[in-house]
């Protein structure tokens, strides 16, 4: 099927251009098509941006187990609404994605009822408890694309080392939630003046920095790639930059609120910015 999208804004090499896009069987044939070219379907973008399907490698569909927060239907619908056609979902569900049955449940449900492509991420350890490896090989055959205990760090460095070596054998990238729980010490917001004023226990930025350092060292030692999830501190960014320059297989992501909001917005009335 040939689709023509007219009146769209297309970005290319940093330039935004108002143009028409011609797509044939999922392949972009032209970004400078004539408005009257023959097509099976014509869509008028009405001046909106035209982008390829976006990919979000860090989502939470909360399904199974926490469907009252989000489920595969609502999560994939909002992904589609935001322009994301492929998403990878984290394994901190209930039960956790630490076995092939849960992987298959997510894949089957999202194929039947979802709106975008869903790629499950498996747990590093059974029950995300940081003690024993999950069945990464069998889960990979069932369709996981990476492993992570996201929501929690793997606190024991020996478990993390072995998890990296084992995941590496199956070609699975490891995504790390970097937080030293001893340093976090049940804190609930960034440590600073605001936490002091609000009377909330602060989390020192060192909690993240220490674990980012450990992951860089373990990635270099095992030669297995690590992706650092939701980076939020200046020191982490510097450490990751240095590691990349040294050729270590470290990648990273951050989240919009980390570079658009600060904790000063937090208050007793509106606690979310903490």
């Amino acid at each position: 099927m040939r689709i023509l999208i007219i009146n769209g804004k297309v970005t290319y090499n940093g330039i935004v251009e108002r143009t028409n896009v011609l797509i044939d069987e999922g392949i972009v044939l032209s970004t400078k098509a004539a408005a009257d070219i023959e097509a099976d379907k014509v869509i008028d973008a009405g001046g909106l941006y035209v982008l390829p399907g976006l990919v979000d490698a860090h989502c939470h569909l909360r399904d199974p187990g926490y469907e009252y927060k989000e489920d595969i239907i609502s999560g994939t619908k909002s992904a589609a609404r935001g322009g994301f056609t492929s998403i990878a979902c984290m394994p901190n569900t209930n039960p956790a994605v630490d076995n092939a049955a849960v992987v298959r449940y997510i894949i089957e449900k999202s194929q039947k009822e979802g709106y975008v492509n869903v790629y499950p991420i498996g747990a590093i350890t059974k029950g995300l408890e940081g003690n024993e490896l999950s069945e990464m090989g069998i889960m990979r055959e069932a369709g996981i694309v990476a492993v992570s205990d996201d929501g929690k760090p793997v606190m024991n460095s020996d478990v993390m080392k072995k998890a990296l070596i084992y995941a590496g054998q199956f070609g699975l990238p490891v995504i790390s939630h970097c937080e030293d729980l001893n340093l976090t010490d049940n804190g609930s917001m960034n440590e600073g003046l605001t936490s002091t004023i609000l009377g909330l226990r602060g989390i020192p930025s060192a909690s993240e920095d220490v674990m980012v350092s450990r992951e860089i060292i373990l990635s270099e030692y095992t030669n297995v790639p690590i992706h650092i999830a939701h980076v939020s501190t200046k020191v982490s960014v510097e450490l990751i930059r240095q590691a990349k320059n040294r050729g270590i297989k470290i990648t990273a992501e951050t989240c919009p609120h980390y570079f658009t909001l600060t904790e000063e917005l937090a208050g007793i009335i509106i606690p979310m910015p903490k």
Partner: protein
Amino acid sequence: MKLSSKDLLGLENISADEISFILEIAKDMKKIVNSSMKKVNYLHGRSVVTLFYENSTRTRVSFELAAKYMGAQAVNVSVASSSVAKGETLIDTGKTLEAMGTDIVIIRHHQSGAPHLLAKNISASVINAGDGMHEHPTQALLDMMTIKEFFGTLSGLKVAIIGDIYHSRVARSNIIGLTKMGAQVNLYAPSTLLPAGIEKLGARVFTNIDDTVADCDVVMGLRVQLERQKKCLFPTINEYARFFGINPENIKKAKKNALWMHPGPVNRGVEMTSTIIDADNSVINKQVTNGVAVRMALLYLLTGREEL
């Protein structure tokens, strides 16, 4: 020919010629094991003590029978109920046994190097029946005897060893012995169970079973200790069997007449399926018989005999 040392501590320090010599003598000893009159008097008047600090059935019984078939006095020290439990050191225990006139001490110990320490401190011969994660030379010798029995030689053969290489003294002794005899050793294991630098011993490390066994004359499985999953070395028995277990499907690229071996005891269905263990190509029970023969040969040679 004579063995160059009073002890057999490992295959690291003995020559290819010595290995061939032991295997030659073992061939003759096997005739005694297979006969109905299993008694000779080569070790008449000699005493042999087995000193096992670790559990064992086949190795201890194998040594004890080997000594008895040869006419020696064989005594088994059960460490749990001995003065070791009272705090006696290994060296003192060894000297005590020697003072009673023991000619050969056969030791199994959970610490690597224990037989070497004992051997340095007593003048009786010491045979290593397995020390820590270091060596298990008599197992490798009986494996080599079994392989040689079928192929007539060890040189030029390809041997695949699959399983927990990291904790395996059987694997280390076999890698050392087989490469010394001119065979090629291929290894495959969960990456968590491969010791650092193992390829420097002359073995080749592979990333899947199919390639590991390709064109191999021998495929050897290793016992996986089930409690290792608690230590994050592999996730579950189920996953281990699925990716690291030997089965009729993933072994197809091995040679048609290849031998299936295992040092035992086997976890059926984990490191090897029953279809492999009980197949015609399986020589697991022949390994056990040859174990007695090899140990008879060693007892014979270490008590100073040169030839039959």
